């Protein structure tokens, strides 16, 4: 360990920091072994017994998305693009979370599905469900491996730890506690991680604001150091592609991000939806994403603000990872640099533990979602239709371990082809935007047919892959799909999501018009017109999800006005 830490690193840990990190590993393993006795049936292992309160499900829901890749990446994006990055936390999350809670959750919950592909199986049949399940299973394993590799790289850059050491210790720990307690373990760990991340990172904006003299002091420093560049307004610089560092127009944010990408991710990505499905009743399932939306709105405080503060206070200028020269630091290192700037022994250990916990929760989330989709949506319908519940639980446990071993292989693969990381994340996005079109049309329009669900999803996914490939091979396609040659990576992703969802919807509608619909009796509880959603007549207005959803949307609008 001492030899590892002799290499030049961003920060140096003391004995108390190492004790804090070691204690976290021991605690999560102990919790995993403790929870093993409760994960006996399929519903326990894959859906945490469906008995989580709205608060636990809501925190796990938002935590599943608050991994360390997210923290480091968005803090880096805030340094690079300014407060525009906060759109991914506000318009790019809140309306979708409220929509999930109020409109979509009743269908997922009433149908008693184990997963999003499980819903597609009930609504459309095995073709759309199989396509969705296989793609999702492959992507979760790849993402778990990417997460593992990213954590190892961060630990090497920040602390000088050996990459193999980080990969094996973290994956063994995650494997043991998820295989033991299933979704119980994953959710417990996500809630712990939520608190760790907040208490580990919140000191950075507090001390940063003290150092700069508050928001206005920070803005003045940024304008002084980077004259003529706009980093501190959210909407004003998006009147044209040329006025902001991201090269995006407001239509890309509103329609590409808010209406498609965010809706797709927050309402159909099973990794996050699985947390809400663990809720103990319908009201908790509806409240969970809305509770999560309030915490999500606050996350820019510990992610975006440190990135902006980095612009104001760091003595060096950070650069893109692709242009990194010896002695320089990349955008993605802004959070560890700020941590090292303000945090001494003890606090540094807490901050690093928060990052480690975030990476491990990301891996746990991916492998637990993989185990569920593999067991219930691939193994059970296509390989072994009739087996005991115990058999499927055993399959889930083995899948967790096998999934982690494959993830380790992926991590080593990514190590040899570093640029694959960007491609894998883009691949994940290929599937989410069209899936939203398929699920939403299926829920809201009873006429949509089995064949239309499959062909629409396939066409949307292929169009997304096609656009991505064309833009990578020939830059001139960027102005065609992303509407401006100035569009940067994130802007390209938003328009790619928008067009792939439109393609999915158009193909689904066209195929629906020439094929035979399912009879109404087969669609009860699956589509809006044929589902009796229980009303909450006896609940006071304070307990109604729709009231809190409206409050979340009002707060969102106020935030947009403040930072316009």
């Amino acid at each position, binding site marked *: 360990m001492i030899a590892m830490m002799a290499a030049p690193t961003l920060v140096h840990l003391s004995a108390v920091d190492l004790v804090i990190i070691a204690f976290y590993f021991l605690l999560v393993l102990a919790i995993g072994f*403790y929870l093993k006795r*409760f994960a006996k049936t399929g519903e326990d292992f894959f859906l945490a017994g469906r008995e989580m309160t709205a608060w636990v499900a809501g925190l796990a829901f938002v935590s599943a998305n608050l991994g360390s890749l997210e923290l480091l990446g968005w803090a880096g994006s805030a340094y690079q693009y300014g407060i525009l990055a906060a759109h991914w936390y506000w318009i790019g999350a809140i309306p979708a979370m409220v929509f999930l809670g109020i409109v979509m959750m009743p269908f997922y919950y009433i149908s008693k599905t184990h997963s999003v592909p499980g819903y597609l199986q009930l609504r459309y049949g095995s073709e759309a469900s199989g396509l969705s399940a296989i793609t999702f299973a492959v992507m979760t394993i790849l993402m778990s491996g990417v997460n593992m590799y990213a954590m190892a790289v961060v630990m090497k850059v920040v602390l000088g730890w050996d990459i193999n050491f980080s990969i094996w210790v973290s994956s063994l720990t995650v494997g043991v506690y998820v295989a033991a307690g299933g979704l119980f373990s994953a959710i417990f760990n996500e809630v712990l991680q939520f608190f760790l991340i907040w208490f580990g990172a919140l000191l950075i904006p507090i001390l940063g604001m003290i150092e700069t003299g508050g928001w206005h002091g920070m803005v003045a420093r940024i304008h002084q150091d980077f004259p003529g560049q706009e980093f501190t307004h959210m909407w004003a610089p998006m009147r044209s592609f040329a006025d902001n560092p991201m090269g995006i127009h407001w239509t890309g944010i509103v329609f590409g991000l808010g209406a498609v990408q965010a809706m797709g991710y927050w309402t159909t990505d099973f990794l996050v939806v699985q947390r809400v499905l663990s809720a103990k009743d319908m009201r908790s399932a509806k409240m969970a994403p809305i509770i999560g939306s309030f915490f999500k709105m606050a996350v820019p405080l510990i992610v975006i603000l440190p990135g902006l503060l980095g612009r104001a206070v760091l003595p060096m200028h950070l650069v893109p990872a692709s242009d990194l020269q010896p002695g320089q630091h990349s955008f993605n290192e802004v959070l560890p640099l700020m941590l090292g700037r303000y945090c001494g022994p003890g606090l540094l250990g807490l901050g690093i533990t928060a990052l480690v916990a975030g990476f491990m929760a990301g891996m746990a989330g991916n492998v637990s979602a993989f185990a569920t989709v593999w067991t219930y949506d691939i193994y059970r319908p296509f390989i072994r239709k009739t087996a005991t519940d115990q058999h499927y639980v055993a399959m889930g446990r083995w899948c967790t371990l096998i999934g982690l071993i494959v993830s380790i292989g992926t991590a080593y693969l990514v190590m040899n082809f570093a640029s694959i990381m960007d491609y894998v994340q883009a691949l994940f996005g290929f599937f989410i935007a069209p899936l939203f079109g398929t699920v939403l049309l299926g829920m809201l329009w009873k006429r949509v047919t089995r064949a239309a669900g499959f062909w629409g999803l396939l066409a949307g996914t292929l169009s997304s892959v096609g656009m991505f490939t064309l833009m990578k091979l020939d830059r001139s396609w960027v102005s065609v799909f992303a509407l401006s040659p100035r569009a940067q990576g994130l802007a390209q992703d938003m328009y790619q999501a928008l067009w792939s969802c439109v393609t999915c919807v158009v193909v689904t509608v066209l195929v629906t018009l020439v094929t035979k619909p399912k009879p109404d009796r087969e669609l009860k509880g699956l589509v809006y017109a044929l589902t009796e959603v229980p009303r909450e007549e006896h609940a006071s207005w304070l307990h109604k999800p729709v009231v809190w959803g409206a409050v979340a949307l009002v707060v969102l609008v106020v935030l947009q006005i403040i930072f316009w």
Partner: protein
Amino acid sequence: MSEDHHIIPIWFFVGFLLLVYGFLILVSGLAEWSHPPNTVLAELHAPVWWGGLLVVLGLIYCLKYYPRGES
């Protein structure tokens, strides 16, 4: 949290974690009081008040959610 399984509430584990971390950070902050680390704003002694805050929150959670009489 669980009616059927009688699982120790997650909030107890959260409190325990905050309590242990708060204690460690508070003690290390007090130990370095006279020779603070070479960080910006070290004179504010953040580990002392941040560690103290974690101890208080951890204690509240531990006491409120202590698993009484459940396996």
